[in-house]
């Protein structure tokens, strides 16, 4: 658990994904879950020229106090990578704080970032197991929120409530299962 969240400091998160992969939805769900826990949160997208498949980032800021700043996040406490292949040409660890945490969707351990911890979860496997596939793409965003919430110390129940509020019917239940599995399956693989 990141003691900074429980200590009342602000936690800043950057999500890396591809356009269409749901990075913005992931940031929004994380904030909704944090608010349900009684915290304050803001989530916002970075709007460059967005195209399906192109690398995108989304941001979340969570705090026990009201958040007033509208500034961009440049020194995140945590980064979440929805598609590990983008790390070949995007520096997903850029600006990651010392002692921070990176969470990567990956079937195997990766090189940890400098002076930060690395966690992996096989969110693609989870999505395929559950049949969470749309237009040929495994839907990994909600699973990654599940994994991240474990690391940030946000209880699973708040994530599940947020998922069921944002989605409905069978899709909500499948995503809730994905979040729960990722919450339980995420592992720390080392620290740089």
């Amino acid at each position, binding site marked *: 658990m990141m003691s900074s969240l429980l200590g009342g400091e602000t936690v800043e998160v950057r999500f890396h994904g591809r356009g269409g992969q749901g990075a913005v939805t992931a*940031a*929004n769900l994380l*904030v909704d879950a944090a*608010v349900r826990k009684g915290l304050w949160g803001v*989530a916002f*997208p970075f*709007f460059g020229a967005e195209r399906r498949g192109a690398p995108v980032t989304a941001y979340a800021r969570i705090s026990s106090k009201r958040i007033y*700043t509208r500034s961009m996040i440049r020194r995140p406490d945590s980064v979440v990578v929805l598609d590990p292949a983008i790390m070949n040409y995007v520096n997903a660890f850029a600006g990651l704080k010392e002692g921070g945490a990176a969470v990567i969707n990956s079937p195997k351990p990766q090189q940890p970032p400098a002076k930060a911890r690395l966690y992996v979860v096989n969110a693609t496997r989870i999505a395929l197991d559950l049949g969470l596939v749309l237009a040929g793409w495994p839907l990994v965003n909600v699973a990654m929120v599940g994994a991240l919430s474990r690391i940030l110390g946000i209880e699973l129940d708040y994530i599940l409530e947020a998922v069921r509020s944002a989605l409905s019917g069978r899709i909500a239940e499948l995503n809730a299962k994905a979040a729960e599995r990722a919450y339980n399956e995420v592992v720390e693989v080392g620290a740089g």
Partner: protein
Amino acid sequence: MKRLTLTGNHCVAYAVKLSRVKVVPAYPITPQTTMVEKISEMADSGEADIQVIRVESEHSALAAAYGAATAGVRAFTATSSHGLLYMVEMVWWVAHARIPMVMAIVTRTIGPPWNIWTDHHDIMSQRDTGWLIAMAENNQEVLDETIKLFKITEDPDVSLPGMIGLDAFILSHTVEPVEVPDQELVDSFLPERRQPYVIRSGDPLIMGNVPADLLANAKMRWDVHLGLKNAEDVIEKVDEEWGKLTGRYYGGLVECYRCEDADYLFVGAGAWVGDMRIAVDMLRETGLRFGVLKLRYARPFPSRRILEAVSGKRGVLVLDRAVSAGSAGPIFLDLASHIYSARPSVPVKNVVAGLAGYEANYEDFARIGESFAKEVSESGWVSSPLEFYPGR
């Protein structure tokens, strides 16, 4: 009351639904689009009794909203940047026809080059039109002020349309916790629609023809100004009433943050005021007593409230997210001219920043504030009254 996490655009959609708006003609433009999409979804699902009209341009969007409002129902539309500029003829027309309605402006930079990020040139370019212009700092204020604007604009002492300004992306697409009031509360707050005249089928009325009496026409022009000045009291009263119902009183036309014992004041409007609050706390830790005067309305311009707040201060620093090219920032121009007659001996400086969406945050404001305090204490006045902040 429900606590939801919502974008600024969705806050406007909820406010429109809760205010029982009947007609929303709209033409999409980034970053306004998700607002009218949400309204359209609400109309489609039956959640709201709204007729959404797809039109071929922003000029038509406002013309259709004006038509619906003239016929006696609450009407709403929304736009940004180039869309607003395209509808300007109708913007003047609605105000001078004295037809109350509400329009959201998701403030966005005007091209060229094409730029979708926030600055305030679009909304500030409309300050001579006769519309009320409110600016929001956060999504709760977006929702609350949109609802209040229906009541304020329809007050018989006002009878003018109003704009709610929200910054592109940093409010429009940012999710944060918001308290959404119940329909019963909004119903008890908003009276039946009031307007100076209604055009009904079978009851002909000619409006806007060439005048026979130019003096009467001149008086009508001046009366738009008087209507906006009347709105000052109405805004204060409506905000107090909203505060009693919801616990959220915003200070009326302006809000002061740590103003009372301040030596120096930031003055600004919109979402970046949140960062000014943090800069005030930072500067106070270094011994510089700053405060923020948040301008909640650019029209009517709150001259009396501003004069009260700046009197006796050592310096006033106006931060504008727009510039009237060839002159200075629009808030500075208003503030300086409106306090002139009271002869306050306070130096006022204008810093123009945040143009084209280029971020200016609490660290920038702390730096600008520190340098301003130094300038005032060294020279006793301002050596350079207008500066462009080039960033760090």
